[in-house]
């Protein structure tokens, strides 16, 4: 019995798919899917991260996680941090992008310099800013007698949080600016021209042509900043280490400490999954609502 023509094309198509998508599919499965599934499995165990023994404990970790007040506090802190940082990063990035596409002198130089902070890794960046907040600003504050600078920001609970946001904004604005620049460049010239002929001034052009055409850039940028801010660990670790007295421990750091420092892997993993769910929910909602506004040229 010969294989029917239909199923032969099917096999051929699968083969082509495997050739092109196979390698990346393999790595996706091995580095994302398998760890995710294994991670979910670990949430049902009492594993301490070291022992050969893993006992299934059912939903106990989830019950504990929901009752872990400190975890929810750290998550709330992360949400506040993310909210402020996302708004600031995108606001600043968008306006920087407008500035450096206007044709000002040395605009390429400005683009490069705004982007540079993103090239420095989070940990190094944290240590640099630790020095700036702890020593440089304090020295300025003391010699010029500026009250709020004469003490290190990092030793005050609220200002330490502000410092984290400030550095995050400084780091990501340049990166998001690049995406906005690409978006601005892609706004079709003929639309703008047509708008001008129809009597739009610059403000109206921006409102009715540029902004709607930029929605896809906004989606990407907001998505990237939300997920990154939610998962912030490196900067949190190197700039404040959760100090002063544990007031800047954000969700990732809390989960890491739970799993590795306190050797409570099962519970830590459970809280990591909860963090993932919250983060995924927020970013997907964001995409869902902004997508609705998307237009085609």
């Amino acid at each position: 019995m010969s294989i029917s023509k239909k199923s032969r094309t099917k096999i051929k198509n699968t083969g082509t798919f495997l050739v092109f998508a196979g390698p990346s599919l393999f790595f996706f499965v091995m580095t994302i899917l398998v760890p995710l599934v294994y991670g979910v499995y670990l949430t049902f165990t009492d594993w301490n991260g070291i022992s050969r023994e893993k006992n299934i404990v059912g939903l106990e970790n989830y019950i504990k996680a929901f009752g872990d007040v400190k975890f929810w506090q750290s998550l709330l802190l992360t949400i506040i941090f993310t909210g402020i940082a996302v708004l600031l990063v995108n606001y600043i990035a968008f306006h920087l992008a407008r500035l450096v596409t206007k044709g000002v002198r040395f605009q390429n130089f400005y683009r490069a310099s705004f982007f540079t902070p993103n090239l420095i890794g989070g940990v190094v960046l944290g240590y640099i800013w630790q020095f700036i907040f702890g020593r440089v600003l304090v020295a300025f504050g003391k010699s010029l007698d500026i009250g709020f600078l004469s003490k290190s920001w990092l030793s005050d609970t609220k200002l330490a949080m502000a410092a984290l946001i400030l550095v995050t904004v400084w780091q990501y604005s340049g990166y998001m600016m690049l995406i906005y620049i690409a978006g601005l460049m892609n706004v079709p010239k003929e639309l703008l021209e047509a708008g001008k002929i129809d009597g739009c001034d610059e403000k109206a052009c921006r409102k009715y042509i540029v902004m709607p055409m930029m929605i896809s850039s906004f989606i990407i940028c907001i998505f990237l900043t939300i997920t990154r801010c939610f998962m912030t660990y490196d900067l949190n670790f190197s700039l404040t280490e959760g100090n002063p007295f544990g007031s800047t421990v954000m969700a990732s750091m809390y989960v890491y400490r739970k799993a590795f420092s306190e050797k409570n892997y099962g519970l830590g993993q459970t809280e990591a999954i909860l963090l993932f769910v919250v983060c995924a929910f927020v970013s997907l909602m964001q995409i869902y609502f902004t997508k609705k506004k998307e237009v085609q040229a």
Partner: protein
Amino acid sequence: MSKKAIALLMAGCMVGSMVAPAGTVMAQESDLSGTKITFLNTKTEIQDYLEDMGAAFKEETGIEVEFYTNTEENHITEKYAAGEPYTIMMMDYPDVADYQEYLYDLSGEKWIGDGGSQYGLTLDGKVYGFPFVIEAMGLIYNADAIEKITGETFNWEDYSNLEAFKGLLDKLVEGGMESPVALNQDDWSLASHVFGQAYCAREDGSEEASLAFVDGLKKGEEDLANDEDFNALMDLIDVYMEYNINKDDPLSATYDMNDEYLKEGTVAFWPNGSWATDVSELTDNVGIMPYPMDTKDEVNAHNLVSGATKMLAVDAAYSSEDEQKAALEFLNWLVYSDYGQKFMVNTCSLITAFSNNTQEPEAALSASVASFVKNGSSVYWYQAMPSDHNTVVGAILQKYISGDMDRDELISEVSDYWKNHE
């Protein structure tokens, strides 16, 4: 021959070549020459010396030791999860208990009789940790800085109670040293070393007294507010805070700056431990003394809190029998060979736990600690704190030194912490 057959043949060859060397290693059972073992070093500062020592060891025995350095918190966990741990691992005290099920029982080794049983780490009656180094915690002083102001030779024994110590601090302030103490703000330093004294310097300073106290804390039976030894420490911490060079903003202190302050004599005292060996970079006239506090039985008037802090443990779960034997030989060689003895004490300035070692350390701070250890003037160092002790209790102490919390609140929070770890 068909393509398939060739492919099979090639695959066969590859598998064969991978298996063969493993087989040959198994064959040489008696002679360990050629065995390769790995060593995890968590004291980064001695990595170069270790490699030199490894070369000397290889020359004598033919066993090759590869040294890796990594101080990441969960590095050993990762290696075990991957199924390829190091043969010998340098671990902190609490780690050994965590990994107990994987470790080799060292109770039958020769060095057990020469200090190994006293300083090694014993769990369930078996020794799992080889005491690599003895460290001590106390108050580091820069005698040069003190003598410059007082004009007299500094002898720490004259200032081993709080009143005398405070008198000296006032004298230093009068003499122009604005703030004679540098207090760390790092949670590990505050929790384990400064506040950690509370678990150690009790009654006669014995292991029993210390364990009984922590046990009482866990059961919620200790009345800290009226505990003389505990309040003695808190009174001293208050004095540290009052004379702290970082007093304006205690939480902005950095470890490196405090190190610098003491080295240069900007301050005279730094509560820390024997690992801060580079304080003698500018002068050899430095040393370490017990905390000058008024404990009930004056145990700390002449005894320093000291104990083995870095343990060497041998993997028994994944290493081959030859590798384990080679590791044991290496530990023996460290204790009994000439090279090993000189290496520990002179090259690395470590304080050794082994009584057969007659070398004298050269670094000033180490020599100061060694003089206590040699005389047996030590207080038991309680190191078996729960793993979240540094972050939780450290945060409490940070609040205390920055004035956000008073002693009563500290007592209630610390008591709660221990009660949750019953």
